[in-house]
């Protein structure tokens, strides 16, 4: 086998950077947890740690949907409005004696609003910012009118169990979150739809030329995003026992923040669901840790902001290093011999 320098050096360096990318966020998470555990006895208390899982699972589920939309090249500012409508509708259904039918009702309204968003973005080609921003106001407005801004106190046993129950020590919402992660991971890595989510986000025009059903993919991404936000709304109802039209206002930006920290590109085409998981935990742990250390709550948004910026900067540096490692081989056409040699050397990292 002919082996050139190019064939040897490139997988070596790029793979190293690739490993850093893959596990970087988890390493940061472990370091932060260890530091906080040492610094604060209340933080390392098991009940507190379980509490972190309980409190961050819902936003994590919303972020799962957001990740699909962002990888496909869009994003959704109406997930908060969707969450509020879902929990209000769930409460209303439960109050009317519908019982557990509240669950499909809440998820259904999420899917529906997601479909409307998707229609405007994919079909009418209005950009995602404008569409979902407008959708958020419209839905929130309608919700206040329909409820005359009153909260509805009602729930069902199943909803309570999902939102606030536990299996042994483990909160059920966290199990739901893990299930959501698994579903999205399977969707993105093992289905054609997921593959097309990446291709549409990477280059929509090229995908269209290649025969990818671009509009259907974008539409479905928004439908799923809405569905996860609807599920989040139901779980919120389970935790609070009350459907509040003003709830969930912070979801859109928090979910986007989680995705960004998790390395999902705002420009689309890039992102891994495992990192969304790590990012959810990281942001949750930091918020909780600051609390335990009695840091004024005014500081928390600033710290979160710094974490987001830090993640983005790290990502940029990684990407630049990686393309430098690749450039070092050559940008111009390699000779066929070199290309064959690279082919034989086998191992090649991919971004995902």
């Amino acid at each position, binding site marked *: 086998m002919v082996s050139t320098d190019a064939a040897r050096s490139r997988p070596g360096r790029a793979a190293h950077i690739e490993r850093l990318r893959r596990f970087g966020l988890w390493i940061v998470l472990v370091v932060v947890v260890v530091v906080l555990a040492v610094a604060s006895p209340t933080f390392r208390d098991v009940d507190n740690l379980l509490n972190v899982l309980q409190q961050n699972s819902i936003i994590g589920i919303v972020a799962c949907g957001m990740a699909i939309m962002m990888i496909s090249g869009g994003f959704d500012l109406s997930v908060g409005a969707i969450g509020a409508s879902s929990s209000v509708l769930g409460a209303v259904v439960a109050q009317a004696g519908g019982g557990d039918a509240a669950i499909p009702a809440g998820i259904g309204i999420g899917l529906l609003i997601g479909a409307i968003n998707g229609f405007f973005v994919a079909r009418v080609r209005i950009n995602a910012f404008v569409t979902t921003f407008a959708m958020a106001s419209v839905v929130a407005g309608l919700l206040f009118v329909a409820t005359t801004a009153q909260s509805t106190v009602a729930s069902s046993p199943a909803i309570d169990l999902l939102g606030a129950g536990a299996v042994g020590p483990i909160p059920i919402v966290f199990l739901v979150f893990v299930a959501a992660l698994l579903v999205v991971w399977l969707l993105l890595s093992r*289905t054609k739809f997921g593959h097309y989510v990446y291709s549409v986000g990477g280059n929509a025009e*090229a995908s269209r030329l290649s025969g990818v059903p671009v509009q259907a993919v974008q539409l479905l991404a928004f439908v799923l995003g809405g569905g996860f936000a609807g599920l989040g709304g139901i779980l919120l109802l389970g935790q609070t026992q009350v459907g509040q039209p003003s709830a969930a206002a912070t979801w859109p930006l928090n979910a986007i923040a989680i995705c960004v920290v998790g390395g999902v590109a705002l420009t689309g085409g890039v992102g891994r669901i495992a990192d969304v998981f790590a990012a959810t935990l990281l942001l949750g742990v930091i918020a909780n840790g600051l609390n335990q250390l009695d840091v004024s709550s005014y500081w928390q948004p600033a710290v979160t902001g710094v974490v987001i910026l830090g993640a983005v900067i790290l990502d940029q540096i990684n990407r630049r290093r990686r393309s430098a490692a*690749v450039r070092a081989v050559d940008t*111009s056409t390699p000779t066929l011999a070199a290309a064959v040699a690279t082919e034989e050397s086998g191992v090649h990292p*991919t971004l995902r």
Partner: protein
Amino acid sequence: MTHQRLEIEGLCKSFGSTPVLEDISLSIAAGEVRALIGQNGAGKSTLVKTLAGLYPDFDGVVRVDGRPVLLRSPRSARSEGIAVIHQEFSLVPGMTVAENILLGREPGRVVYRPSRIRRLVAELVDRIGISVGAALDTLVDDVGPAIRQRIEIVKALADDVSLLIMDEPTARLSKSERAELFDLMAELTSRGVAIVFISHYLDEVSDVTDSITILRNGRLVETRSTADTSVDTMASLMLGVSFQRALEQEEGVDRASDDSEVVLRAERISSGERLHGVSLNLRRGEILGLAGLVGAGRTRVCRALTGADRISSGALVLQGRPVVFGSPRAALSNGVALIPEDRRWEGLGMEATIAENLSLMALRSRLGRFGFVPRRRVSALAQGLVEQLQISPPALDTPVGTLSGGNQQKVLLGKALAARPDVLVIDQPTAGVDIGTKAQIHRVLRRLADAGTAVLVVSDDVEELYALSDRVDVMVRGAVTWSGRRSQLDYDRLLELISGATVSGAKGHQQP
């Protein structure tokens, strides 16, 4: 009578109220290679895209093997056996070579298995017998334009094809890669595949096609046999009455002079693994042609000179001062501009207008201070460039995404010209532009040199390079092997030098 693969009758296509194709009728037989030629903006790509199923709202009738077809989507076109290699790359960054080759036609309905994709592509490559030239799980972001072109070809052949349409497939290929492509075409036609071949290289057209269809302003001028059509006839049919004026070449004056000032000097620069201690002098008011085979490192030199790639050893000296350019932007603010080889990939703002794109590079240096940009100056600047480069349609508010491929190239060229650089480095100045415009771009570059700019040109078209340059440097495998005045070099000698033949008795000086 031979069997007709494709028949088109009365095809019309318009965008809004602007007709782009009017009443096109033609037919292509099985096993025939048909050239489609015409100026930039004549409507070639529009015809291709219609056949690819991208414009289902066309009027007229299209038949494949005698059956009328609807062509409602890329999928439906492909299921009729029509495969298309588009002028723009249809590759998705962040995905591997294999994923790109099968994009849009992965097996199965729901489930996607990466390992299966890879195996299928390996089998496919074996079956059609052309190598991609890169590992199948390399990211497409990491391969050069020639390999991207091969990926497109393999991708187009992934299904059974009865009609293969190639929109300027050779624009980015080296000579040997072109030869390979032509062999492949011959093999396909022997199996009865009909081929539509679009190119602005008319000698290529006359070598590899059986018949020629000429388009002008969206209308079909004529279809004739290649055997009795000379390159001059093709040009005159394409360009119509403007033929003579467009092709007029200015007599090449020799601007080279030993006492012209060196504006930018590269001293033994190395970069990456392909460039070893290259020295060059770019002189005020002269055009330097950098000759060499694909892979000789010319693109690397262009990028290293302009801050696009890092220099690992050696130095750049700009007007007597040593400089380090950390980025193309830093180079630009020092008056050194690059027009890169792979222009589409590096990107234009497709949604933005002609005027906005043209003024982008000039914004910082020339148009305004303190961030204010007077609109009038933007449009005056853009208007001048549109006229100079004959960009069509000439309306400044046209979104660049709707321009024909060749006209997009002109916008990119104009963008760099607008910055009025002291040093202009241009990699493949005329790839994808029609012969009329090519002469015009040559005129623009000459005038730029006459006005004092130092110009560095890299071109795979050796005739072009020879005609344009005042001085020539020849590169072989990452090093400059010959350097001297163009007037001391005849054309055949230049070809020899490029191919790396041992240098003997050249009048220019050799470098170690």
